[in-house]
């Protein structure tokens, strides 16, 4: 298949003495550059680490200046976030986010897989034009269509309904999914599809036994990206949901205004809400690259 191993080793050369001086000099310099890379990595991660540390501090330590780095740790911020202090419980919002993200990802795949098939395996005419139409919808600013959607939802009683978000998130991610899946399916050698057909396999058999196994990793990458974008979305969710269907990012913004600002709690809330995406993204770094580049980088 096409997954690059990101940490592809350059062919190791042995025998230092045999190296020309130019290469030896380059080696020496690379130790310093490795250190620099570590420093840059730590610098970028520092705010995230600070968020986690602050979330584990008492509010008084969180608001200390200079920062109380070594203050004793506590889970109070998390306890308050999960509603032990009588505040609103985040569980409904987390569940709404999960449902909206999962359902819309499933719907995206259901719509995008057949479309990608028609754009890669059995190509329709002018398939490139169709592909670019899909991509062009992604370039229009969503905010310009928000008002009619809001009015439509208000008049049909769809406001504050998770299914409206599912529909919108599906339309938001469908172009990306079609592009990605198209590029993954196009990698499947035609010969194996034809060979199966010559052997008398039905279309369903070809799809499930030949194409699905080869395209599996690509489908996984696509699902991951769609899930992340849906989980992160805030503008639609904020305008179109109220109490019942509010998602985690909206809960996060309201949580602050309702409680006043308690830094440790805010950080705890941010950690909890970011955790699913962080975990998924760390676990599937290569898939992330493929997905973010619409399948162009493999």
């Amino acid at each position, binding site marked *: 298949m096409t997954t690059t191993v*990101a*940490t*592809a080793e350059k062919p190791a050369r042995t025998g230092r003495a045999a190296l*020309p001086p*130019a290469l030896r000099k380059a080696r020496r310099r690379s130790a310093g*550059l*490795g250190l620099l*890379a*570590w420093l*840059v*990595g730590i610098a970028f991660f520092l*705010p*995230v680490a600070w968020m986690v540390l*602050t979330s584990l501090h008492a509010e008084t330590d969180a*608001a200390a*200046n*200079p*920062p109380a780095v070594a203050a004793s740790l506590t889970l109070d911020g998390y306890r308050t976030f999960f509603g032990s202090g009588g505040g609103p419980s985040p569980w409904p919002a987390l569940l709404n986010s999960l449902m909206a993200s999962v359902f819309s990802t499933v719907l995206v795949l259901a719509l995008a897989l*057949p*479309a990608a098939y028609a754009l890669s395996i*059995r*190509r*329709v*005419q002018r*398939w490139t*034009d*169709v*592909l*670019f139409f899909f991509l*062009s*919808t992604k*370039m*229009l*600013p969503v*905010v310009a*269509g*928000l*008002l009619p959607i809001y009015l439509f939802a208000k008049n049909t009683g769809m406001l504050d309904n998770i299914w409206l978000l599912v529909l919108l998130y599906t*339309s938001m991610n469908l172009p990306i999914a079609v592009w990605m899946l198209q*590029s993954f399916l196009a990698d499947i*050698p*035609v010969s194996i599809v034809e060979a199966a057909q010559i052997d008398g396999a039905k279309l369903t058999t070809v799809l499930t036994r030949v194409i699905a196994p080869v395209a599996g990793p690509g489908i996984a990458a696509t699902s991951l990206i769609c899930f992340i974008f849906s*989980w*992160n979305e*805030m*503008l639609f969710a904020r*305008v179109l949901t109220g109490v019942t269907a509010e998602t985690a990012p909206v809960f*996060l913004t309201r949580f602050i205004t309702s409680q006043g600002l308690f*830094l440790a709690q805010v*950080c705890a809330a*941010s950690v909890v809400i*970011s955790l699913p995406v962080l975990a998924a*993204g*760390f676990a599937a770094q290569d898939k*992330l*690259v493929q997905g*973010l*580049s619409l399948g*162009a*980088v493999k």
Partner: protein
Amino acid sequence: MSTPTAVRTERPAPRSGRPAPRRPGRGARAWATRAPLLPALVFLIAVTQLPFVATLVISLFDWNSLRPDDRSFTGLDNYSQVASDEGLRESVVTTAVLTAAVVLVSVVLGLLIALLLDRTFPGRGVVRTLLIAPFLLVPVAAALLWKHALYNPEYGLFNGALTWVAELFGDDTPPQPDWVSDMPLIAVEAALIWQWTPFMMLILLAGLQSRPTEMVEAARLDGATSFQIFRYLTLPHLRRYLELGVLLGSVYIVQNFDAVFTITSGGLGTANLPYTIYQTFYQAHEYGLASAAGVLVVIGSIVIATFALRVVSSLFREEVSRA
């Protein structure tokens, strides 16, 4: 989609081995080929294109939702109001400045970091993981983190660090700038650059790793300096990946709402177009005006998108021809 026009010259040749597109007129079979495409196409047109048509219609009315009975057709009146509106004109400039600054700085930083990570050193995988963390934070959470945990003048990490450093030197009155009020746009940009640099780095690193290493080694043995290798081998190879990063980054950053909404609430000259439109209908309830502004933004986007799509299609054609 159904009636093919003359074959356009820039259409990529179908890959050898692919069944050639069928001629229409063998009706049933052509439709069987098209059928899998239709659900996605119909869904997308219904959910994304229809609202824009509705926006276009609403933009021709004088409509404030606080006075629903006063709705009247005004033609292009909203457009002249929008064009003469100082706030909206400013938000166009803000959007351009914000997008350009974030995309350019992210690409340059991303390229430098990708070059660092393109060499083997102990713990390279760990460093890459540390680097992508900012991109994986939920955008609202990232914006809150910057606003409250880093920028806050009383207890944010930045001023905390300044206090700590000053104390080392025995200074009891360290500078404690109020970051967001002193430099609002830069504050928003910094938070976004922190989030998007890893994204650019990932794409460019993938580009670097698809580079043929033999060529670089050969050039080095021939006595080429590192800079020459970068300028004449690496950069041309990365061009496609740079274009892809700029394009995708622009698409998302132009539409950024979360950071502006969270860090500055659009105040202090940081209101970009998405935020301004949101405010016009959500707080000012001026449906007609908001729609007119929306239509103008769409027109602007189409102009930019046409250019951007051309970039993608050149990439795409290379992909197709290489396959």
